[in-house]
């Protein structure tokens, strides 16, 4: 594997996100949505805290607030990330630049990894922007208004979970983008895949025995939830890493087969 090739393509792909307003718009919308949600959760939290002081409501910890908040962020990722992956290969087909890549001394693995890294960089950027919310909680509770800041360990493991889940959605989206030439089809199929992996958790409740165990293991939300509760389980890490590699492997196969299909 040639690292220089990966670096070259990664740099171009990352820049390409900002040639069009797409990245700006989606990072903007994402931050706005998260901000509104944060605000509404925080007011609910404050209301509960106030009422619980008079024994009128059960007390809610700030960690519970963070957990609900990040569960929602996970859902938003599921819907927003397909828009960041839809162009990865469909654009190369449309502009015929795939011909340039395929006649350059670049291996399809290098191309796959470079594109994945570019989309992952955008994800990391979004996660960094979202750090504003826990930072706010820390500052806010330092002023004495809250009952202690959020547990930094839980915040940390939640972010790791968000990163893994996000990378999984990116890997799925990239695969669909390598299959079809239509951005719309790529987005729809990515949604469908993300959502199916999400639903596995619900389906598992209807199943029994070994099937239930398998479905529950495969359910992306159940795996994410274990991170959100502050535990980093090896099985969850293995789950995400293997599912990401499997999607990348399929992408690579799809790219390799292009030459034979054309």
């Amino acid at each position, binding site marked *: 594997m040639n690292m220089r*090739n990966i670096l070259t393509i990664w740099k171009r792909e990352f820049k390409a996100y900002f*040639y069009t307003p797409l990245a700006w718009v989606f990072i903007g919308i994402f931050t706005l949505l998260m901000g509104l949600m944060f605000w509404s959760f925080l007011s609910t939290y404050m209301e509960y805290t106030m009422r619980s002081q008079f024994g009128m409501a059960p007390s809610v910890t700030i960690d519970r607030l963070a957990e609900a908040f990040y569960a929602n962020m996970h859902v938003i990722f599921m819907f927003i990330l397909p828009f960041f992956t839809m162009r990865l290969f469909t654009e190369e087909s449309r502009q015929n*630049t795939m011909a*340039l890549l*395929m*006649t350059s*001394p670049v291996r399809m693995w290098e191309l796959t990894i470079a594109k994945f890294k570019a989309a992952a960089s955008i994800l990391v950027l979004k996660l960094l922007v979202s750090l504003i919310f826990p930072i706010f909680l820390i500052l806010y509770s330092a002023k004495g208004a809250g009952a202690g800041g959020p547990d930094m360990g839980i915040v940390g493991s939640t972010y790791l979970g968000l990163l893994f889940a996000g990378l999984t959605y990116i890997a799925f989206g990239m695969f669909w983008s390598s299959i079809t030439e239509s951005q719309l089809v790529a987005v729809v199929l990515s949604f469908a895949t993300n959502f199916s992996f999400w639903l596995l958790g619900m389906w598992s409740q209807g199943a029994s025995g070994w099937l239930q165990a398998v479905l529950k293991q495969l359910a992306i939300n159940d795996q994410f939830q274990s991170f959100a509760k502050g535990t980093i389980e090896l099985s969850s890490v293995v789950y995400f890493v293997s599912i990401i590699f499997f999607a990348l492997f399929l992408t690579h196969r799809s790219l390799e087969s292009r*030459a034979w299909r*054309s």
Partner: protein
Amino acid sequence: MIEVQDLVKKYGEFTAVHGISFSVPKGQIIGLLGPNGAGKSTTMKILSCFMPATSGVIKVAGYDVYDDPMEIKKRVGYLPETPPLYLEMRVGEYLEYVAQLKQVEPGKIRDRVDYVAEHCGLKHNFKRVIGTLSKGYKQRVGIAQALVHDPEVVILDEPTVGLDPVQIIEIRNLIKGLAGNHTVILSTHILPEVVMTCERVVLIDKGRVKVDDTISNIAGGRSETLEQAYVRIVTSEAVAPA
């Protein structure tokens, strides 16, 4: 430099190329002629390792297309029918990217990019976004990307499409200037262009080589123009008795 033996390409049931053979010595410019659908683009795609052949022995720059495609890709510059351009990039930025992809040494990239921009008449549009350029200029960028890594073999699929008469002359001179150091295969429908730029012609029709000769030999003996010779050869099958 280029050796093709019994090249066959099938798209499913359809056979696009029926076992063609030809070779091009180093430094020569040849014109690949033939009617639409004759298999010109397919042959060029196979030579540039864009797609694999169904069967046949194909060697480019001393390497086999099956065994060492990576080595060939480093040494070949390829301009497809539709130039492979990132419309949202700037001309200079794009050429630099292609040079990096083709593994030009980092220290030489600047010089190579300047050189091709100069010779393809792109100096004044160096900072323009490719999507805003006219068709002729986009074509020039396409030619520039095929030459940026100073390849041993240059494969140009209809390089002068969309250019105005002045640009055509410039590009023709550019291609002529490649002779000697570079081996060039170009396809075109403009016959005078072949007369002016190429030393040899390989004419294919329905996936088979009809003529492989120098231009003077094809037309000279019969005192006809290349155009007349072309029409005679391409239509002969229908007229001549089997």
